[in-house]
């Protein structure tokens, strides 16, 4: 391949000027005129209760109130993978904060005042917040009707239990593997819930016009998927896909929280209820925390067998997920982990049980990392501990077992090309692994941590991407796709891919944010797959455009097409060196022939991509037989951590992350992902900490008490390392890298902490408080008290009994 001019270059983001000038518009910035209505939602104060009566008569009388809507008005369910969620709670509320009714008014203050006048009579029911209770005999059922819910074919709910899905993966014979091992070690790791904390809260405006058109301006990662879910949910009212239009301007951060459909369904319903007027639903920061999605909590039991030479003989990994009141999206997180919980290692014998459990906590769902951050905390902690027990260097242990191209995956398919060993070596070298460092301070110690990671996009087997591309009179280009710019630089990367094919610089390419009426299809911007999937579609569209352009030149000038090539926005010809036709001279108006007429016309193209080799048809008992994942992105990371023994406070002196992206389309943006993802991941390890009361109420739905990093809370130094082992089916060899950068973070801190002060903590977060207490021999769990509210009530060791349930 000849050297590339645009791919592999750190181009300036094509949206950066709009962002630093404030020109970038987000949904809440759009004007809808004086007819805009505002909604305020009436929320459940109970974690579990029956709704006996809703009296809205007083609210309706408030001047300025237009409508009060309840579950009776929209008795429909919705859900991406399982239809278990309600537009408004109908007979029963299942978490504190669930929407029960909405007041639509002329202004937000009126809506808020009137919402307080809606009187809901509840009959409180016992609630189940704890996994052990949810799985116990005679457990209270969060969804008694589970068996009647429709869901995607690769989910396996267990009727009359709280198990919404159970992914089982079986490879080889684990018992045999443990027998072959020289050492078998088993322990339990706990990861609580976390919140996405995009700085832009969810907001959506819906308008249903008198001609039956439903338009939604939505802050979303998933415009097409939203349209589809809306069309499915509202089908009983006669709405069809063609009637629904979803427009997504810039999105102020997603991290998975704006994937699929959560609160947006409310605006779709309310728009129908107030036909003719636009209605805005904007979540407060509090609602953003408790009524969108949260990252699910998990208790993971890991049993690993190893030989003295370091070969892993077997892994048994049992994960019980606190998925919350509705699992329509979250169950797929559980599924994804159930297929991949070995981590990036060659393991001959595997038994994974990933169990999705309903509780009366807010709905779980997708969060950057999609379950992998959660299971890597336990697995990569365990890897260190096992290495220590067989007296092997933990980096060498990982290297010894690192997965390589062609290895058999837990579900039987084969591993894609990957540079894991290279990533391990480079990350280890960068933190001077093996070299002990001493703090200059008498009460501080320095430790090093290391961890590997992998992740595949979790997509239905037919998740597709498409692109349109058209030229303008000046030879500039418009690309129309429906991948979402959520900050990762998607628009710029798409421009660079088209630029590479067509030689038009990215600065002369506009890439639009989606409008489902106009832009080409995209399943969703999730799973770190759009550079790969949509990039392939854009590349195909650009190639179609190139072929059309060459065809026109060929028709007019008679040059052989194989002699023609593009250079600097000109068509040139190898057999006629002085021929140079600027694109702008013909891409709209065609080329004039000697007869005076013109051939050609506006050049436009389309492209699409669907991973035709995937399937979700694995056996329910073993997961063998399907090809559910397109590819894995792998990498390794290390940190140097300073720990204050007196205060427990930790400071990351250096963080290094090496990731195999196949081909960095824009290395600067890859580095941005590494820095941003690492900082987000380190925060989940060090201080982010979600708290519930024993009544299921979220106690810290704000940045006052749910701390996310400020500019002062970053590592002293971050070293991003880009590895490039090409992905054969990726655009120019690229594969995804959004989520991967935060996956290793928690285990990095846990491992470095042990290296520094000899403390092994098996539950997140590793707050300074927890560290300081444990260093003095005080177990945090013993003193945290009920006001600290955690989603798991008991001692993690007690949760081991679940392994008995998994056959």
């Amino acid at each position, binding site marked *: 391949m000849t050297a590339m001019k645009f791919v592999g270059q750190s181009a300036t983001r094509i949206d950066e000027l709009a962002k630093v000038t404030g020109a970038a518009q987000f949904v809440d910035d759009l004007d809808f005129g004086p007819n805009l209505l505002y909604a305020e939602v009436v929320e459940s104060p109970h974690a579990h209760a029956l709704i006996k009566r809703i009296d809205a008569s007083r609210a309706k009388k408030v001047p300025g109130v237009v409508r009060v809507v309840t579950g009776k008005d929209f008795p429909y369910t919705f859900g991406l993978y399982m239809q278990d969620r309600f537009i408004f709670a109908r007979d029963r509320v299942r978490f504190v904060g669930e929407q029960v009714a909405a007041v639509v008014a002329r202004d*937000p*203050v009126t809506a*808020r*005042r009137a919402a*307080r006048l809606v009187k809901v009579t509840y009959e409180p029911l016992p609630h189940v917040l704890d996994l052990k209770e949810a799985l116990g005999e005679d457990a209270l059922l969060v969804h008694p009707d589970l068996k009647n819910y429709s869901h995607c074919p690769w989910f396996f709910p267990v009727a009359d239990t709280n198990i919404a899905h159970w992914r089982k993966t079986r490879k080889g014979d684990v018992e045999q593997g443990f027998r072959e091992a020289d050492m078998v070690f088993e322990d339990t790791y706990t990861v609580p819930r976390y919140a996405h904390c995009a700085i832009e809260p969810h907001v959506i405006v819906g308008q249903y016009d008198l001609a039956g058109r439903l338009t939604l301006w939505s802050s979303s990662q998933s415009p097409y998927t939203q349209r589809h879910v809306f069309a499915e949910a509202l089908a009983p009212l006669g709405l069809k896909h063609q009637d629904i239009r979803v427009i997504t301007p810039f999105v102020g951060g997603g991290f998975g929280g704006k994937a699929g459909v959560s609160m947006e369904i409310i605006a779709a319903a309310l728009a129908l209820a107030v036909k003719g007027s636009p209605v805005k639903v904007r979540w*407060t920061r509090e609602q953003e925390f408790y009524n969108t999605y949260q990252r699910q909590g998990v208790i993971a039991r890991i049993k690993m067998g190893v030989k003295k030479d370091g070969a892993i003989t077997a892994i048994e990994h049992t994960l019980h997920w606190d998925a919350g009141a509705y699992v329509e999206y979250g169950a797929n997180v559980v599924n994804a982990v159930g297929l991949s919980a070995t981590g990036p290692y060659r393991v001959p014998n595997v038994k994974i049980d990933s169990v999705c459990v309903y509780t009366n906590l807010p709905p779980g769902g997708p969060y950057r990392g999609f379950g992998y951050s959660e299971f890597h905390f336990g697995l990569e902690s365990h890897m260190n501990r096992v290495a220590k027990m067989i007296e092997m260097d933990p980096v060498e242990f990982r290297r010894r077992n690192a997965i390589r191209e062609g290895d058999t995956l837990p579900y039987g398919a084969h591993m894609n090309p990957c540079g894991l060993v290279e990533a391990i070596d480079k990350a280890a070298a960068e933190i001077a692994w093996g070299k002990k460092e001493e703090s*200059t*301070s008498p*009460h*501080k110690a320095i430790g090093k941590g290391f961890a590997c990671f992998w992740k595949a996009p979790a997509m239905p087997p037919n998740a597709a991407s498409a692109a349109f591309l058209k030229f303008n009179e000046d030879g500039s280009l418009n690309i129309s796709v429906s991948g979402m710019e959520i900050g990762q630089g998607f628009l710029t990367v798409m421009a660079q891919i088209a630029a590479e094919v067509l030689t038009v610089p990215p600065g002369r390419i506009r890439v639009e944010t989606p409008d489902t009426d106009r832009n080409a299809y995209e399943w969703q911007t999730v799973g770190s797959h759009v550079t790969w999937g949509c990039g392939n579609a854009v590349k195909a569209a650009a190639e179609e455009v190139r072929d059309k352009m060459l065809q026109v030149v060929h028709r007019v000038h008679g040059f052989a097409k194989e002699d023609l090539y593009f250079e600097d926005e000109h068509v040139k010809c190898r057999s006629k060196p002085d021929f140079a036709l600027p694109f702008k001279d013909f891409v709209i108006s065609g080329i004039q022939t000697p007869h005076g007429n013109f051939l050609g016309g506006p050049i436009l193209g389309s492209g699409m991509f669907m991973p035709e080799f995937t399937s979700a048809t694995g056996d329910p008992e073993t997961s063998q037989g399907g090809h559910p994942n397109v590819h894995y992105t792998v990498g390794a990371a290390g940190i140097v951590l300073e720990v204050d023994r*007196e*205060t427990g*406070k930790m400071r990351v002196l250096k963080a290094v992350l090496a990731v195999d992206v196949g081909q960095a389309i824009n290395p600067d943006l890859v580095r941005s992902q590494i820095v941003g993802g690492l900082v987000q991941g380190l925060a989940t390890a*060090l*201080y982010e900490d979600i*708290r519930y009361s024993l009544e299921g109420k979220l*106690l*810290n739905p704000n940045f*006052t*008490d749910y*701390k996310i*990093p*400020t*500019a*002062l*809370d970053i590592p002293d130094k971050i070293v991003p390392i880009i590895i490039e082992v090409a992905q054969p089916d990726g655009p120019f060899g690229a594969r995804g890298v959004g989520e991967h950068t935060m996956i290793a973070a928690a285990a990095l801190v846990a491992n470095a902490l042990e290296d520094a002060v000899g403390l092994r903590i098996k539950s997140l977060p590793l*707050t*300074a*408080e927890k560290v*300081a*207490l444990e260093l*003095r021999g*005080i177990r*945090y769990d013993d*003193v*945290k*008290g009920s*006001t*600290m509210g955690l989603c798991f009530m008991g001692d993690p060791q007690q949760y081991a009994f679940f392994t008995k349930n998994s056959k």
Partner: protein
Amino acid sequence: MSIACEFDYRKPKTLSKAIRLLAKRGRQARVLAGGTDLVGWLRDALVAPDLLVDIKGFDDLKGIGVKNRALVIGALATFSDVLESDLVAEKLPLFREMAGMVASNGVRNRATLVGNICSAVPCCDAGPVLQVYNAVVHVRGPNGKRKIPIGQWFLGPRKTALRPGELATSVAVPFPGKKHAGCFVKLKRYRGEDLAQASVAVLILAGREYRLAFGAVAPIAVRGPRTEALLKGKALSPDLLEEAGRLAVEEVVPITDIRSTKEYRALMVEVMVRRGLKTAASRLAGKGPAYGINVMEEDAP
């Protein structure tokens, strides 16, 4: 989320008119200065006054000056004013150290120090520093002026000695009259802005006089008289530091809440007292780190 309650807003031209308004409306009226607490409370419907009296028009409540051998911080002086004041830096740099740890720049540019002690939340940062300097709150009300020593100012969480109709006009911080140095230590969940999990203000005066005060480990900012007595007249040895730390824990009553367990608070008070004393002593000796570091985060000297 908008503010859903209705209230009237007045910005009187004279202080006496403001006092009259406050006196007339009693508990239904609220004083508005920086508003960084009040606007939040209005939004969360924690308070529902009928009237806000904006005092930002009164020039004599602005600024920081010296009067009667005391630093006078006007009711309208913001934490940024405190942080940037040359006078504060020269005379009472401990206030600068404390102000730099309050919230973030965007809030400090609005929030006032006097407002901070009027809100009187247990984690208020100004409280402990005012305590070690024996500051006096100047108050005006319908019955004239009165002075409230800081030790009698805080009555409980969000409760002060201010009576309905009264307005805190300034706080006066008497200069100790001899060489002194201090250290403000704030325990936070991370380096960025945070409400105090615990705070300790240490002041050492020439002649081995020690003063300590604590925030967020009792319902109000409190002094540590027993620890002060233990230390009085003594040079700080490692053993004495240990002993002072241990004794200080007995003088506070930390509770477990969303920000910390009481156990961690207690353990950290011990560490904070040690580090604070050591740093203040070092500063008094003309060494030590410049004011503006948090010894819970940065390396202790």
